């Protein structure tokens, strides 16, 4: 999430027309504490029972944990781009994500 914060202006236009929902199976209090501590500008979502994880087929089968996968959803509610897996350590991943956000109409 540090990369999302550090590139929030360039990739996500500081949230103008773009919303980032960062989803994990952590408790909401854990996510709130982490967001405050690191000053993350995104919205966190607590998917305790991996309901969203199952709907998007990103849940690890044997663990209550979601994989690192990104979906870009357009203003019409349709999936515009999928990065499965999202390689968070690769600079190219953020370049691809920024381009997908712009194509989807949010940037």
């Amino acid at each position: 999430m540090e990369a999302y914060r550090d590139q929030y202006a360039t990739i996500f236009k500081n949230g103008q027309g773009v919303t980032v929902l960062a989803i994990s199976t952590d408790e909401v209090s854990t996510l709130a504490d982490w967001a405050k501590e690191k000053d993350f500008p995104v919205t966190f979502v607590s998917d305790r029972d991996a309901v969203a994880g199952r709907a998007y087929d990103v849940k690890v089968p044997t663990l209550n944990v979601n994989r690192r996968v990104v979906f870009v959803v357009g203003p019409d509610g349709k999936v515009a781009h999928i990065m499965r897996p999202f390689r968070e350590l690769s600079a190219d991943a953020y370049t691809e994500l920024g381009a997908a956000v712009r194509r989807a109409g949010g940037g």
Partner: protein
Amino acid sequence: MRGPAARDILIGMANHLQFLTAVLLLTVALPGGAQDAPPPGGPKVGEMAPDFELPGATRTGPSQTPVRLSDFRGQTVVIAFFPKARTGG
């Protein structure tokens, strides 16, 4: 005694070879090969993103109302699944 024992070993090896051959043939014959992972489910590009309504939080604290994906219609939404808080990326 050496004759029957050697014959038993040879028969055992032949059976083992037959088993390995059968496994190999099944692997090749099955669609996609048995070692291939199935394609991921979930929404595809161009399909509606499944809606969800779950507790949310920002750097100012837990949200008063749940986060519902459909509330963001008209905006681009980046849904970033990740394993656990305090992991890199």
